[in-house]
């Protein structure tokens, strides 16, 4: 009677557990999902729910400067009746659209080279070259642009011989800095999108007599469109909620800076929460459209 025989007649605990899990895959899925989904639902979705509830609370701005947890639409009424907020939302969405378009246009050539022209070696070198600045600290990039755009900065020094001067700090600076910071987020999904376009399709298009531009417009562009939308999720969303870059290179108000000021400076959490629902709504609509365009498979 060897130990080996024993182990076949009396299965180990792991094997018995394994047998149960194999018979009921639902238990297995539940076991795998419990911790991560629990975490995300409790901390993340739960927090979003609390934020949404807070949008209906009341802040006494006159006497007590405290928050009471009552239910009213007063914050939303305040946001809709004051035209200043509408201007700020319009301005922020506008900048987000401009930044997204700019990044898409700038990303196209290099993404095409990465995805289609370069050999495997050059491709991985380029991937590192694009990844490094993506991961370089956001604050460091802002610091760099303050050095470039300030009065005695690099840009004015370069333009001086031409008797020109840079845009200085302001809305143009916000547009430049945000386009710069979010650019790698557009390049990488787009390059992956180009990589997935089968070369045989491009050859077929040429064989059938299409000019380069025609092939690009009717074969390449539709195929990389989901990747383009995937990249735009980041450029659009990150611009929409930014409050640090915008406050460092301008004194203009954007959605992010209004939310931050209301919460951090004024202490009016309910109004900040109500205003925060605006970018959430914009992004939910954007994400639903993006999913329709197949962008989630291209992320």
């Amino acid at each position, binding site marked *: 009677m060897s130990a080996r025989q024993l182990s076949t007649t009396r299965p180990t605990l792991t094997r018995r557990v394994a047998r149960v899990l194999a018979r009921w895959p639902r238990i297995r899925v539940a076991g795998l999902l419990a911790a991560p989904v629990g975490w995300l639902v409790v901390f993340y979705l739960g927090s979003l729910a609390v934020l949404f509830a807070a949008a209906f609370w009341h802040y006494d701005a006159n006497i007590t400067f405290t928050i009471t947890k009552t239910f009213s639409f007063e914050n939303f009424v305040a946001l809709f009746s004051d035209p200043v907020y509408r201007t700020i939302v319009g301005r922020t969405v506008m900048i987000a659209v401009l930044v997204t378009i700019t990044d898409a246009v700038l990303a196209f050539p290099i993404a095409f080279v990465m995805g289609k022209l370069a050999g495997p070696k050059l491709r*991985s070198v380029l991937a*590192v070259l694009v990844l490094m600045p993506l991961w370089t600290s956001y*604050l460091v990039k802002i610091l*760099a642009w303050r050095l470039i755009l300030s009065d005695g900065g690099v840009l004015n020094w370069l333009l001086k011989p031409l008797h020109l001067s840079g845009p200085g700090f302001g809305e143009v600076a916000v547009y430049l800095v945000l386009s710069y910071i979010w650019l790698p987020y557009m390049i990488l999904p787009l390059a992956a999108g180009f990589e997935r376009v089968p070369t045989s399709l491009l050859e077929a298009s040429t064989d059938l007599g299409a000019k380069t531009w025609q092939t690009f417009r009717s074969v390449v562009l539709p195929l990389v469109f989901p990747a383009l939308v995937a990249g735009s999720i980041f450029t659009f969303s990150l611009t*929409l909620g*930014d409050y640090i870059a915008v406050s460092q290179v301008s004194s203009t108000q954007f959605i*992010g800076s209004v939310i931050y000021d209301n919460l951090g400076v004024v202490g009016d959490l309910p109004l*900040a*929460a109500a205003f925060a629902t605006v970018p959430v709504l914009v992004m939910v609509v954007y994400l639903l459209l993006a999913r329709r365009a197949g962008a989630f498979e291209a992320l």
Partner: protein
Amino acid sequence: MQLSRRLRVVLVGSSGCLLVVIYVPILLIVLYAFNPSKSQKWPITGLTLQWIQAALGNPGARSALVLSVQVGLIATAIALVLGSLLAAAVHRHRFFGRNVVSFLVILPVALPGIVTGIALNTTFRTLFGGLSLFTLVIGHATFCVVTVYNNVIARMRRTPGSLVEASADLGADPLQTFRFVTLPVIRSALIAGALLAFALSFDEIIVTTFTAGFNETLPIWIFANLSRPNQLPIVNAVALGVIIASAIPVYLAQRVASDAAGYG
């Protein structure tokens, strides 16, 4: 699509120019870290190591660095566990709400950071009794999960399921299969995911501002000192350190991931 020679040159040339534009601001910070003058005007007046020494000896920057590393390590450990479990569930099983789960994991990075930040801030202050190191770590782990998840699930998709079946057929129990088959296959994806999660946490400022309370991470220290003109030379020197500190994990992650792609 036949590309003319000229078009090729234009594409490659404009890509090169773009890379130059991307790198100039970063190189500028490197130069400014050695700038002897307190004024931040261009051109810089010379080269000195004075501010780098001052940054190394700055107690605020040092304790902020230590805190950033601690928070990054804990958040990465949590994200590793949660992200891999989630990847295993979504990859291997078809279940009700699978699409919702894959949507849920992207949400913390797809929604603007300020929304995540203010949501966590409100919840922690009203329900958890205030902000602390604990809430800071929870915030970081929440947005780090997606980097681990993405890396692990991408590797699982490239790995044939027959490997796990073969292991079971040869008599391995699930723990043995995990140890000798699954883990070696996903190991490099785990390392790459962990490195990126750490880099993400190390640099994060937006959610951090809302969840840190009185804890000062390195990005918060930099942000606080950006508005103090006297401190700017030291900030430049710290910024140089941050550039190097985030370049190393990203470079390693890319190496690890591409080595693995090579044999797989």
